[in-house]
């Protein structure tokens, strides 16, 4: 009997982990290429959720789900052009401070426009309901989120590995100076990377808005978990982040099963253990520019 419960929690952890994945991937990408620790990443997740609610109330759920990430992606281009671009070569502490401030500014703007109290947003009726599979249950909505996440991950992987654009990004992650010496400018690439990264965060916000409270501080609720996943997965590693998201989801689920008060702590303990054994994270690569 107990074994079934554990299996149930593991499978549910997969679903829960996929929610973090969309946020963590963008975070990892911006950090790997631009060297910017984007503490405001969660704030863009929140903007995505709010835009989804506003668009959803007017045009319906599907347009909200599509338009919200696109709008936030466009916003990302502006953020890159006027803010991030100044800090690629600067001391990381500066971008840390700037994005921390940006996160607070965005949270306050959301609070001023929509108020501090959560605003409602429902799962569309055609996506509500449960899938029963051998005594286990899965809400259709979470399966839909899982489907969208898988598509986004595949799409991003194809973009990074099968296109000329992706080759520049990967080369830039490894050695930006060499890319520059070859006469390739990383600046226009960065605008696209930031747009994609923030767009993915907004996609997560739109996807989670119907099942989580939509409130101004929702970004700070997810940002720490996303960072932990990036660190566990290993800097610059695409599949490392995917693997870490799944593991964190499962570990948290199992902790809830056996000792719920430690749900948050379990994630940090996991990070601690993995960093002890593998300081570069699960699949982290070696970076010349990050070696002391």
């Amino acid at each position, binding site marked *: 009997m107990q074994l079934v419960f554990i299996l149930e929690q593991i499978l549910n952890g997969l679903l*829960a982990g996929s929610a973090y994945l969309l946020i963590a991937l963008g975070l990892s990408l911006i950090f790997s290429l631009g060297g910017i620790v984007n503490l405001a990443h969660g704030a863009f997740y929140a903007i995505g959720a709010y835009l989804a609610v506003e668009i959803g109330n007017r045009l319906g759920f599907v347009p909200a789900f599509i338009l919200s990430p696109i709008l936030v992606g466009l916003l990302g281009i502006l953020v890159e052009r006027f803010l991030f671009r100044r800090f690629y070569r600067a001391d990381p502490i500066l971008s840390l401070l700037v994005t921390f401030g940006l996160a607070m500014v965005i949270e306050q703007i959301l609070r001023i426009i929509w*108020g501090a*109290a*959560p605003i409602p947003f429902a799962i569309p009726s055609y996506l509500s309901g*449960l899938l029963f599979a051998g005594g286990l249950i899965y809400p259709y909505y979470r399966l839909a989120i899982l489907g969208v996440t898988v598509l986004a991950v595949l799409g991003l992987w194809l973009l990074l590995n099968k296109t000329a654009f992706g080759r520049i990004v990967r080369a830039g992650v490894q050695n930006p100076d060499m890319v520059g010496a070859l006469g390739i400018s990383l600046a226009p690439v960065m605008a696209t990377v930031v747009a994609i990264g923030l767009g993915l965060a907004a996609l997560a916000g739109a996807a989670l808005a119907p*099942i989580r409270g939509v409130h101004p*501080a929702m970004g700070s*609720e997810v940002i720490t978990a996303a960072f932990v996943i990036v660190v566990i997965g290993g800097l610059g590693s695409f599949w490392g982040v995917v693997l870490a998201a799944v593991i964190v989801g499962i570990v948290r689920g199992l902790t809830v099963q056996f000792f*719920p008060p430690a749900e*948050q702590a379990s994630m940090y303990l996991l990070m601690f253990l993995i960093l002890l054994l593998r300081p570069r994270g699960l699949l982290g690569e070696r970076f010349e520019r990050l070696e002391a």
Partner: protein
Amino acid sequence: MHGQRGTMDRRTLLEGAAGVGAALATGLGMPAVLRAQSDALRVGHLTPLTGFLGPLGEYAVMGVTLAVEEINAEGGVLGRRIELISEDSVNPSTASTKAQRLFERDGAACIIGEISSASGLAIAEVAGRNRKLFFNTGCNSDALRGASCNRYMFHVEGANSMYVKACGQALLRDGMVEGKKWFSFTADYAFGHDLFKVADRFVQQHGGKFIANELVPTDATDFSAYILKVRQAQPDLVVSNLAGNQITNFIKQYKEYQQPFPIAGFGFDTAVAWGAGPEAMQGVWPCLWYHTIDTPSSKKFTEAFTQRWKKPPENQAWGDYNAMKIVAHAMEETGKTDSDSLVEHLEKGAKFDVMKGREGYFRAWDHQLMMEMYTMTPKQKGEMTDPWDLMVIGEAVPAAGEDLEVIAPSKEENACTFA
């Protein structure tokens, strides 16, 4: 900012007075004292504006601000304008530091506010040391009225016992208690632990029992793993002893997982229900006050609030608004602003219109406001007149004719001795 400017004002004032005194060479300090008294009366307001209770704190600020504006428009208190100094209390240690600063540097006559029971305790300790009043408008923990009670702390917010017994009446009526298995989700901090203790006492007294109590971290956002445990346990009733944003997340995801077990809650604020929305809202919940309560003062408040803030008041706004009005009223009645005189006055059982069927009063031995409570259930979506018209409010508890004290914690349950 307020405080800094205030210090300047006072210093300028005192220097001016000293100058006058020196010039007249009479050494009379009196004019300075008189002028200081006609100064604005400072009232401190601390409440969480960030974190999982932030949504409620915003309503608290709107409520107390409206009260101060109304009082000042009518000429202030004892001829003095009220100057409100409102800040984010953040967490217990920050709340304690800010409370100290409000009393010592800003010379606040009293502090109103707070929602977190942990921060409330921290503020009460500072208030007790400074022998200044603290009006608790949002901390529910029974322990604050019992083991941690304090002569300078008054509770406008209902105690956990009042919430449990109010909602418990509805559950008893529906046959959901005797012989039933309850499954609890409890917010993992002072408030939640206290609430579970009170709820556990209630269910045992009436022949039911808790088969599980899940302690949920305050920043938990994904309840799926918890809901799977409910399904494993197959209870008769799922009880929410959660707080703030936790409740919104829980209600939305419980709806998503479509479990057949009914839910009820012992801690509640309407803002979290509004956040869950009519599609997800379900269950029986206790309620301190709701804007559809049909009394003249309740209607008047709802109207003024809606006009000022473009949305109807929430129960947290009710708490901070009433606390401010009670303070002002007590000062007018006694003609004094010092905390000791006010404590004495309030302990004598002064009555207040608290926008409910019956007037409220503070119980002398634990300073809890005795008042009616309510239960509420979701309205059918088609019957709602606006997004805030989400809940149907039940009969007042205790019923008319019953003593208001029957839902409050008894001396045996929650002994309090003022040091």
